[in-house]
């Protein structure tokens, strides 16, 4: 085998481009095994270094191919020639092939022996065995490949320029030009694609030879032509390819109807602005103003908002819905109660437009069930008359409705519900009231499955239970479909939530459809056209005259001279607007108070969020344990027992007042309140999480890396500039640990009050003593009751 040392050695020598030394184990002992052995011991290098040398050697050889080399063979004769190839794998040295070899005249040794031999006898290629080579000298190797390339390019450019100049000259001379003249000098480049547009043909040519298949007046029968021209009789039968419709079938009518119904159902979905779909369905749309791209190829970018809402909508509903496909455009369609449909669905409601729509379902609900059914049918038939395309929907709806009524089994109810949800059609429809049984069943089922996903304090248990019962009772007693639906939708989503943990923030928010009118009830519906109001009003002259007439009718009216108006606005106080802003100290102090309140509210918000199962899920399932609050660190409202009004607690300024009676009874204290619900609320808040995890349990949060937050955010301090104090939650923990309640820790544990704006870095150090500082997040160390404004460390 070829010793690596050789290569390395060669590589080392390559700098002077002379490969001398042992080329293989020549029989003449010029460089035999012995030699190699000693060399190996002499130049032992690590495998890596060897490899580097080998690589260099290879590189050198590759670059020298094609260049002039001098080979001295062991016999002493020197050959010159172009290096054509070399065998790196050869075992005994380096085999090389020379092209156009010739002997070098000044070769040292026995020239006489070969004197008679002419260079011609060497032939065109000359192969030299590695074992015979004593020395290989490479000449004029250009190792700068890049330079070479650059050089070539510039050469090329020069050529191009010349070409261009030539063509220009030709242009100037206005010679006849060939294709090559025009395009020859140019390198191939991408051209702009242009839409093909038919040339407008003059009327004459159109009539003569522009007849197309469609335009042809006579009908074209390929079979007859084929027969006439070539005598081929076609055996074509349409029914080879399709199923024959058996029109004699006794059920034909019925099947036809069914097919039509299906077709209508599909078509009735509407194209919803999808031009392509509309075209497929043969719906004529106005496509003027759209080019081919808009029509067929471009991505429909309308409704970025739609997309956003889709994101929200899609997921929670997926859990509850079946696999039925619903076109995306339909998913956000209005459904449930809709004033429009009420006003369009019959005489009674149409007359009383001003009636709050929410009353209407209630009215319907008040009627006994049997009647209700008939009413629904009437309604359906009415709508049937008005909007025939809606028939399939309603037919099926009614059917489902029956089904749900007949069987009180749960699945059917939920299926009805599912169906109901899915079958949002472009035309908003009124909800069909559920039967009482179904509702009760649904609620029962919910109450069985529903479990408060956190430990309910003992004193709360009865309350929760009672509330649940009450809720169920209330639902049963007052079957207002509107309320129930709300209840239902909430609860069903709760169920689904307990099964599928929230993936993203979006899923924790149901898109709520408001009930009632867009306008508050005070608004006069019959306000009508107010355009007329803009005629006299806002008219400076008319109004001035009016005002004048009211006051002093006797005097003649003159329009106020404009030069009375000073360039300033009428102020009521002699102060600058700047004085209405707090000074720095006050502002910062206020910010701090805010922060305290914020913390406080976060706790109460937890209370508020309990009726929002989505949050609860996360706090109970993922949040609580992850936050690793040791039992001792459980946050309690200090002095809650001492008569803090629970409403105040729950209903702090941002108004997290719970609409759910279940929660209203919650006393502020004694309840487990993870003090930071935000991480679940806002997944991207997670920078806080690891911090807390470390503090308490050392378990990193699984949510720690919020996928949609840019990494920069994680590292960026988002507090006040130069803030170097404490991460706030550290303070919280500390306070809790010290046995104090959150805002009221009476422990004088040496927490000084710092403003986050403190830029002194030793603020950090100071706190470091008590709490390790994990981040440079801003800071309002709020847990001290000693307000010492501007208490910088120095």
């Amino acid at each position: 085998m070829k010793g690596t040392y050789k290569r390395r050695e060669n590589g080392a020598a390559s700098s002077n481009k002379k490969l001398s030394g042992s080329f293989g184990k020549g029989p003449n002992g010029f460089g035999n095994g012995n030699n190699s052995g000693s060399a190996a011991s002499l130049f032992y290098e690590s495998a890596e270094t060897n490899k580097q040398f080998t690589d260099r050697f290879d590189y050198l050889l590759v670059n020298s191919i094609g260049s002039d080399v001098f080979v001295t063979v062991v016999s002493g004769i020197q050959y010159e020639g172009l290096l054509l190839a070399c065998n790196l794998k050869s075992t005994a040295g380096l085999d090389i092939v020379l092209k156009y070899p010739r002997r070098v005249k000044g070769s040292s040794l026995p020239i006489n022996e070969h004197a008679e031999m002419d260079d011609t006898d060497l032939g065109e290629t000359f192969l030299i065995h590695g074992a015979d080579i004593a020395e290989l000298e490479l000449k004029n190797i250009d190792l700068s490949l890049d330079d070479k390339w650059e050089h070539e390019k510039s050469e090329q450019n020069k050529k191009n320029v010349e070409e261009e100049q030539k063509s220009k000259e030709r242009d100037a001379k206005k010679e006849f030009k060939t294709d090559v003249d025009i395009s020859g000098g140019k390198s191939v480049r991408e051209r702009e694609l242009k839409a093909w547009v038919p040339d407008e043909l003059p009327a004459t040519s159109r009539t003569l030879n522009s007849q197309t298949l469609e335009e042809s007046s006579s009908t074209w029968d390929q079979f007859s032509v084929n027969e006439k021209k070539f005598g081929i009789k076609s055996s074509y039968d349409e029914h080879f390819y399709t199923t024959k419709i058996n029109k004699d079938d006794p059920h034909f009518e019925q099947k036809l109807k069914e097919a039509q119904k299906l077709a209508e159902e599909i078509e009735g979905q509407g194209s919803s602005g999808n031009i392509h779909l509309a075209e497929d369905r043969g719906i004529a749309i106005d496509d003027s103003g759209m080019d081919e791209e808009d029509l067929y190829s471009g991505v429909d970018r309308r409704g970025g908002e739609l997309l956003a809402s889709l994101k929200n909508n899609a997921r929670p509903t997926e859990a509850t819905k079946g696999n039925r496909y619903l076109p995306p455009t339909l998913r956000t369609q209005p459904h449930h109660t809709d004033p429009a449909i009420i006003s369009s669905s019959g005489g009674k409601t149409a007359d009383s437009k001003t009636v709050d729509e929410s009353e209407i379902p209630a009215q319907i609900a008040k009627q006994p069930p049997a009647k209700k059914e008939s009413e629904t049918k009437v309604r359906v038939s009415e709508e049937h008359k008005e909007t025939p395309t809606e028939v399939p929907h309603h037919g099926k709806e009614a059917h489902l409705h029956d089904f749900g009524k007949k069987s009180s089994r749960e699945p059917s109810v939920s299926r009805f519900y599912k169906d109901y949800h899915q079958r949002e059609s472009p035309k908003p429809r009124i909800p069909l009231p559920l039967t009482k049984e179904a509702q009760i069943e649904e609620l029962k089922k919910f109450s069985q499955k529903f479990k408060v996903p956190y430990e309910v304090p003992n004193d709360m248990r009865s309350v929760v239970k009672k509330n649940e019962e009450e809720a169920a009772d209330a639902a049963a007693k007052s079957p207002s479909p509107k309320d129930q639906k709300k209840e239902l939708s909430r609860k069903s989503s709760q169920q689904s939530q307990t099964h599928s943990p929230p993936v993203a923030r979006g899923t924790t928010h149901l898109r709520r459809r408001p009930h009632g009118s867009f306008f508050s009830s005070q608004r006069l519906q019959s306000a009508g056209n107010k355009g007329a109001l803009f005629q006299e009003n806002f008219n400076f002259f008319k109004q001035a005259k009016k005002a004048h007439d009211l006051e002093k009718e006797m005097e003649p009216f003159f329009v106020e001279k404009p030069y009375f108006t000073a360039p300033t606005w009428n102020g009521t106080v002699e102060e600058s607007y700047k004085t209405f802003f707090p000074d720095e100290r006050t502002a910062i102090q206020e910010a701090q108070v805010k922060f305290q309140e914020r913390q406080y509210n976060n706790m109460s918000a937890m209370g508020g969020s309990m009726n929002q199962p989505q949050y609860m899920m996360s706090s109970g399932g993922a949040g609580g344990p992850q936050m690793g609050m040791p039992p001792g660190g459980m946050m309690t409202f200090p002095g809650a027992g001492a008569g803090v009004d629970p409403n105040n607690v729950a209903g702090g300024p941002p108004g997290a007042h719970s609409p759910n009676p279940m929660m209203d009874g919650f006393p502020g204290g004694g309840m487990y309140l993870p003090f930071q619900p935000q991480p679940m609320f806002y997944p991207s808040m997670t920078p806080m999480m690891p911090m807390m995890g470390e503090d308490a349990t050392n378990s990193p949060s699984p949510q720690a890396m919020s996928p949609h937050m840019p990494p920069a955010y994680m590292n960026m301090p988002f507090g006040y500039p130069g803030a170097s104090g404490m991460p706030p939650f550290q303070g919280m923990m500390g306070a809790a640990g010290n046995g104090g309640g959150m805002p009221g820790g009476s422990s004088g544990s040496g927490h000084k009050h710092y403003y986050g704006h403190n830029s002194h870095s030793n603020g950090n150090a100071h706190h470091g003593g008590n709490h390790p500082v994990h981040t440079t997040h801003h800071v309002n160390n709020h847990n001290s009751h000693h307000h010492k404004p501007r208490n910088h460390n120095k």
Partner: protein
Amino acid sequence: MPIQSLELFLFERGLVGSYPIDSLKNTTLGIDVNHYVSRLLTTKKEQFLDAIGGFPISLKMYLESDLKIFKESNITPVFVFNGSGTANQLAANSHFTALAKEVAAASSITPSGSQASRSAKELMLAQRHKAWTQWSNLLNNNQSTYIDQPLQPQEPFRYQAIIELKKFQSDLIDYFIEHQIVYQVAPYCSWIQLSYLLSSGFIDAIYGPTDCLMLSNVDRFILGMEFPNKDFRFIDRARVLKDFHVSSEEFIDICMAVGNDLQPSVLPPLQIYPSNKLFEISLEMVLNTGTNFYAYQLSSNAQGGAVQEVDKYEKGVSSLKYMPVLFSSGRVDVYTIDPSREHMEESRKPSANSEHRQSNENMASVKDRSDSQEGSTNLAAADDKTFPIPRDVHDIIGQRLPDEYYYYKSLGLISGKLFDAITTGVYPEEPPLDGGSSNSYRELIAKSVELFKNKEINLLTQNINRYFQMKPIVQVKWFSPENKVALTNRTSPSVFEQLNHIIIKTNNAKTTPFSVSEFVKLLLSTEDLSKEFISDQVVFPNSVPVDQKINSAFDLLSTNFLRLLIQLEFFDFDFGEKSLTPNQWGRAFLKLGNLGAESDFVGKLFILLVFLKTKVLSISQDFTPSVRSSLSDHTLRSYPQESKYILALTRLLTLFQVDQKPTAIYHGPIDKKTLTFREHLDFVNDNLNDLFESLVVSSLTANEFDKLSLQNHEWQSEIVYHMPFKRSLPNTVMSMMVEFFLQKYLHNGNIKHDALALVSTEFSTYKCVPNLTEQFDQSIAYLSQCKVLFDELCDMKLVSKDESELLSEAVTFATNAVRGE
């Protein structure tokens, strides 16, 4: 500019509700035009608008279809335009430097430059610059292959920039008047004006930007209309605040930090975050660390940071609190939404709570302290039912002008550009669409000071507070912002005094609406101008009985048009000698009546006359520095004479608006050289408009007209609608069609058919121009009229003989080509 990044966030949070449009039946809907148009003309639309100039024609199509739906649902729309900018807005729009900084930044494009740090205008200019650079590269690269097949630009000229509405305000107003739609131009902020309209019951709902969330008197507003689905998206303020868990104070705090309409820049520490997440991030800061961005600005200020930020913040909040609106009394004053009530309630509730807690927790010291703070900040609000208004609102909003001026502005009678110049002391000259690098354009700007601006300022300040008569006002140009030109607004006697004896009173004028051609007819039919139009008595004093004042819209506009002609030195007027005679230019103007030109063209040709009179550039003269023509090098070399013809023709045709269907958005060839000329004429048109508006306003404020005789819509339809120079000039499409038609015609052995086919293909006219040949015929007719005009001008030695001969040959050449002879 809405609250940054909020809209998307609202959608993400599911806080946007929707209702069918039907539920707005029989209501009056107040629409913020800015917001509305930004919805209609999204980024993809009208990408080449800046390369051809003119009005975005697709806008009319959208308006039409939307108005139809409103009509179907019996919804009465009330469109409210934005008025002047507040101090913050003006600063953000570089009003005081005329975009000089942005222009400089735009031309030195650094691809690495973060998009967030650049202002919208800068991005727009940068995109324009990029597109023009690419365009010239394209021309260079195709120099040898391009013969007569025009090249199409690949880079859009606007991208992610909302169309500047101010330029098209008058066009929209015209459209609204035509369709009898109620509109109003707010004195300042449109959405606050809308909130006033809503509170006082003039409208039932607002269709406006997310900024409305900052208003405590707007519970719900409509954010967007989805006409295809027939529903609309709305935002419920209470729900949003509840969902965010912030008080309205905190919400405003966040808005001021992330940037909104009243405070358009992003404040620290938020600049480092991605702009589409700003709101979300700052909300988190507030929720988690109780960040108060005002406190942040103050503290960073104390550390030697920029005072500017505190200032911006304070101005933003204050302009929200003390925004002037146009009241139904026709007066403009500070409108306090009475946030005091809400503010008080909000600040009391928590403070009551905190007191409670604090007392329970024996934190008396804190209580005292916080009480005293609250006292200092809320004392005034708590004590006084009326919200206190500071004395220096003019610093945050702008100096106050007389109510009468605001009224004219609300009608759209005057654009407000000059009002801003008066209140801010700066008249900015911003770069035109082509960049405005030609010497002739800059000369035009220099000449405009003497010719127009001084007179306008004088006319407008003469009747108002003395302060404005003394106030220094400067013209600032984008290309040399340091080199300010002081506008002298003091002349003695004042411009109005020089002119107030010029009165036109016709008796039957009520029937014919004013137009330039009608005016020419009137002059031509008058035997003795001096006798008819010079009045011994001035009519403005209050002692003059109403029936002797100017009583009809036609007379008002005619009187002022004649005054305009005198100011522009088309007519010589000497009251002492009671002489009013047309000079050469005036005679040329009168010739316009004899050309047989359509009435619309008379007004346009007048603009051309004024331009020629400035003598900055003749019709056949090349620009310096030269602007590259879109004609191919082959054409320029092979047909030098014809190229000259084409140049002259295209320039004249910039005043010819091709009849385009609004359904197709323009995509096709562009020509910078033509655009440059168009911008010259546009500049003249703008200045004529300014001067004419100033004349009318000065005449009105002086009481020459019976102002009590008109209702709002009469003001609009009889006066505003018929004021000349208000509409945008045509785009360059017709010019380019003729240009490329003639080029093809030259290269193709003078075959008309092929050339026409080329135009039809390149300009996709099968889509947008229903009758191409007719348009060509009309343009030829127009050119022939131009030729006659030039002959006349030549006779009067107002243009050189060469010029008129060249034009004459050019028109013959074009006529032959188009007629196919």
